[in-house]
């Protein structure tokens, strides 16, 4: 990537923002934004996604660095679990003598 502003057609790259709303919880995807680099992306994230007490921690990652599942491969990738009830705990019977289940 050439430096932002090095020519007229190079906009700031896109970043994905993850915000942790409270200690003990996971970071959740909040949205995306443009920024010239990672440090500015964290600051822009603070301005765009944490102005109303939403977070205690922010992560940013370049959108281009995310590897995603192929939406066209949905059928094979997210095959229906129907008929595979054994994947759920409720499939199994309670064992005798095990309490608090």
């Amino acid at each position, binding site marked *: 990537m050439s430096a932002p502003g090095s020519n007229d057609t190079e906009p*700031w790259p896109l970043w994905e923002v993850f915000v942790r709303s409270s200690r003990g919880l996971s970071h959740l995807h909040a949205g995306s934004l443009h920024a010239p680099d990672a440090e500015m992306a964290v600051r822009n994230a603070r301005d765009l996604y944490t102005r109303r007490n939403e977070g*205690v921690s922010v992560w940013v990652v370049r959108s281009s660095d995310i590897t995603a599942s192929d939406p066209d491969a949905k059928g094979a990738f997210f095959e229906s679990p129907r008929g595979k009830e054994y994947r759920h705990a409720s499939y199994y019977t309670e064992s005798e003598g095990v309490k608090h289940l």
Partner: protein
Amino acid sequence: MSDQSFRISAGEALTAEKITEAGEKPSEAVATYAVRLGDDALILAQRLGWWIARAPELEEDVALGNIALDQLGHARSFLSYAALAWGKTEDDLAYFRDEPEFTNLQIVEQPNGDFAATIARQFIVSYYQFELYRRLVDSTNATLAAIAAKAVKEVDYHRDHATQWVLRLALGTEESRRRMIAGLGVMWPYVDEMFRDDDLVESLGDAAVLPSSLREDFDAVTGAVLAEAELEVPEGFVARGGGREGIHTEFFGPLIAEMQVLARAHPEATW
């Protein structure tokens, strides 16, 4: 430490409305001092608001808009407090005073110029305000101390924002560096005025902060950033100043005309 302690409750934060409600009347001298600080913040907010929808990127629009709103919040607190001394309101002071009655520093009224000039002004003003508020927290006047305690955290972020951009513009492309140097050159003549003492601040003792006492720290911290950005501290002419006595540069008239026109066309209108 519980998680709750990290959160600032909007309900407990000091607001202009609460200051008005408390109705603690400041002395004439304290009120005059509060108007100075309020005017600095109000005029800077008005200038920064211009950038909304004009910044280089949408994200920067939001950043400058947030900084403007922070400044407007500080202005409202200072002016609401001052207004109590004269049985007035913050709006009376913001919208119904004329140019010679405004006592802001001349730097905050300087035109936005290009983005680098605005960053240069932000860099100077936010470092100045941070040094000021960080000391005003210990004011013997409880209201000024409370306003400063809230403002100093926000201004700390404004410092960081300006610093990030000074570094990037100065160390970016040849063109961005040229603009950063030009912006600092336009704004630096107004630095001297920020640190001038006068009879009013001297008479207030520990309720106020002597502007001259901020200079050493201001020079040290801004100097460190400029060195990192491989920039020289600008030298050259010093503006005559006089903002604290109501003397303003040619750019001030159009600024308050735009700021005040609606309130003057429709007095006491609400929306």
